[in-house]
């Protein structure tokens, strides 16, 4: 929670010049340390380290397909991460990315299956994306409303809203009168029917087999817009003011409740968009655990970026590639993907921990 500590943040700001090299150095070194520990664990599991690394690399970037898949994962993580830093600009901590993804993915699926498929001019996928975004926005905005109206801590409300959203998805794919596909053959898994081809996101490179889709462009636009809003807009300044000192902001004429709700709504909307893109871009049908872990990985991406949109991009790519690699490592080299999860956790702890250390060194 380095971001939330105003004293540390101020110190970090005051000492920006000295910290610039450290800010690059620290994440790189911590990643290397974490991966090193990961290798030790792999050795401990008895698997061949060389084989594991090969499988890991292959999964991350071994082919155009794998690179595309890794970037596709990074897209959703980046959107959730952007949502996180947007809320944190107003000193709000949105830990409900998982629920916002789930709501976005679920309602985007519903829109794609029921009506959007026949729309012309790309509306077939634009409408489900919009529906998913709105669903996430409502889910986030709800937490913002609770915060503004009743003072409910948004960490708790976003978390609990996730606990509601995930079973909702499960329910929707369990119930035939909701999204579960009709039983046609032997396979009757609890999942939705595949969405119509017209609602799938167009691929960027349809000829070389890469699954990379136009979600990349959407995410790129989102990065630029969020960066502009947070760094250079009146809205960004107002969010920051409200987050830093609500009373002073209110005295200066700002409607603080409005900005709290707005920040959470936009934050949730970005998560919902991420969820919709997961379904429309790669998974194509809704399963009960389609969002597994993306919300929390996205949260970590947001945390590690320390409020910077560029940081979100880097973090999302890192985690996207790590995740692809780990899946392949588990399949090909029989190394539990939990090892990579452990590495991710280590990266987080080392980066967060070392940031505090470097800041403290500057203070005293």
């Amino acid at each position: 929670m380095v971001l939330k500590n105003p004293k540390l943040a101020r110190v970090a700001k005051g000492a920006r010049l000295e910290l610039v090299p450290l800010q690059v150095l620290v994440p790189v070194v911590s990643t290397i340390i974490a991966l090193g520990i990961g290798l030790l664990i792999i050795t401990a599991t008895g698997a061949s380290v060389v084989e594991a690394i090969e499988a890991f690399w292959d999964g991350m970037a071994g082919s155009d397909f794998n690179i595309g898949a890794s970037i596709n994962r990074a897209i959703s993580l980046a959107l959730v991460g952007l949502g996180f830093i947007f809320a944190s600009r107003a000193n709000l901590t949105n830990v409900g990315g998982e629920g916002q993804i789930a709501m976005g993915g679920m309602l985007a699926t519903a829109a794609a299956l029921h009506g959007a498929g026949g729309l012309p001019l790309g509306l077939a996928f634009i409408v489900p994306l919009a529906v998913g975004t709105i669903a996430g926005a409502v889910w986030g905005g709800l937490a913002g409303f609770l915060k503004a109206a009743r003072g409910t801590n948004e960490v708790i409300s976003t978390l609990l809203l996730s606990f509601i959203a995930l079973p909702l998805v499960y329910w929707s794919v369990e119930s035939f009168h909701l999204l579960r596909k009709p039983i046609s053959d032997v396979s009757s898994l609890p999942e939705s029917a595949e969405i119509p081809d017209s609602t799938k996101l167009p691929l960027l490179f349809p000829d070389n087999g890469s699954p990379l889709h136009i979600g990349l462009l959407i995410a790129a636009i989102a990065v630029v817009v969020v960066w502009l809003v947070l760094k250079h807009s009146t809205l960004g300044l107002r969010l920051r003011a409200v987050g830093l000192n609500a009373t002073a902001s209110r005295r200066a004429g700002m409607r603080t409740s409005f900005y709290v709700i707005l920040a959470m709504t936009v934050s949730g909307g970005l998560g919902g968009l991420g969820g919709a893109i997961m379904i429309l871009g790669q998974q194509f049908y809704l399963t009960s655990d389609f969002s597994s872990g993306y919300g929390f990985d996205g949260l970590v991406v947001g945390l590690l970026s320390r409020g910077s949109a560029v940081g979100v991009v880097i973090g999302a790519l890192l985690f996207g590639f790590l995740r692809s690699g780990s899946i392949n490592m588990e399949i090909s080299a029989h190394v539990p993907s939990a090892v990579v999860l452990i590495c991710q956790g280590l990266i987080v702890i080392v980066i967060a921990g070392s940031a505090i250390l470097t800041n403290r060194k500057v203070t005293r």
Partner: protein
Amino acid sequence: MALLELSGLTKRFGAFTALDDISLLIERGEVHCLLGENGAGKSTLCNLVFGVHRPDGGTMTLAGEPFDPRGPAEALQRGVVMVHQHFSLVPNMSVAENLMLGRASAVLKPQDIIVRMEQLAAEYGLEIAPEARIDELSVGERQRVEIIKCLLGDPQLLVLDEPTAVLQPDEIDALLAICRQVALRGKSVILVTHKLGEISRVADRTTVLRQGRIIETVGMEGADIRSLVRSMVGRDVQSAGSVLAAAVDIEGKTPAKPTNAAGPVSPGEAVLQISDLVYRDPHGVPRLDGLSLTVGTGEIVGIAGVEGNGQTELGLILAGLAAPSAGAIVVGGTSVAACTPQEITDAGVGIVPEDRHAVACIKELSVAENLFLGAIGKFSRFGLLDKSARRKAAQTMMRDFDVRASSPDVSMASLSGGNQQKAVLARELSLDPLVFLLAAQPTRGLDLGAIEAVYNRIRAARDDGLGVLLISSELEELMAVSDRIAVIYRGKLVGELAAGAFSREAIGAMMSGHAHV
């Protein structure tokens, strides 16, 4: 032989040197005042003596033996006691119970405490009922309990950190008398203050601190107060004029007559009309209880009162941060009771709130951002900030109001309190329209130079025809700056004095709830 000898004492906080090579003798039986502006190191020095902090260099000797307390407990054991600015009493326990806290060995003996309290009452005039509950006592009485707590153990040295800041005039007199009594009995007293009047009344010797160094130590017989001020501020305040001199009590006694001869005496039409204002806190306790007040154009109305009598609530309501339970507030014909801060601003009200850090500015934001906090949209194109236009406007404002910062882009937190307050004044006085200004505790925590600037701004605003409401706990300040003083007591105005009729005694009596003139 001196009781306490400090030699070469140094204390650093990070890169900041709070105390630099302090050498000082405290004699037995003397009242030794520490004088200095905020940040001069007075409190740090006390905290070293009381063992709250440990020095980075230098030594202390107490009664001829080395003294290096590792904490307050050790200082207490050696007979050094301290009354802090914030009391450490348990509010829902009785006086006697509080006195037993931390002092009782295994067996509590309430009777012993009561006997000892009677002795102290006889010796020092420290009268207080042992069975009274702390939360029923006034601030002055609570402080008396703190002092009794200190004297119970028959200490050698009593340290008082800014003890008079929270007291009303008669309580200050009583406290200073107690200090003399303590000194008469051969104990030593270190009294921290920035009020010059108190020094000439109580001190045997005074040490002036500035920026962590001792400027001079002088005996008080025949001492020149003005030269003390010069040492304290580092420049001559002769130029400051009589208002500042009176406001900070340089003369050392009540100014014989009001000093603000200049400026309009007859106020014009009313700009602010408050009628029967009632405010109940969330527990239903009335904090404002039918307060009525009128401020006219071109006058400064001062509100005097002991803190906690409704001044804070009045300030919050006028700022739009609290909604009154009943009553009307009209500014220039517009009703502003229970309006949003924006509507109040639009009605032409400028607010200098009493809590600068919590309400007036956002210290993490830059000076420019704070100067235009209420007008963020003023410098923007298509929702994007035009930072260079804002910087230019901020620079102009900073020049006009003498806000000293290396650039408009540095954070508000990096400014001194005085410059922060000047920035707040700059913002509020630049509002358009502007007909009324509330200045609540506008000089609290500021150094003399900034105090002077604040007074000049407030008086200039008055001369431009603004109505000004000045809420302050500093009586001297009110008497020096106001055209009229109203006294608030338990949420009501209990009396009013016109310019020319100000009297410390009369105001003091009203502040403590006694019948008014």
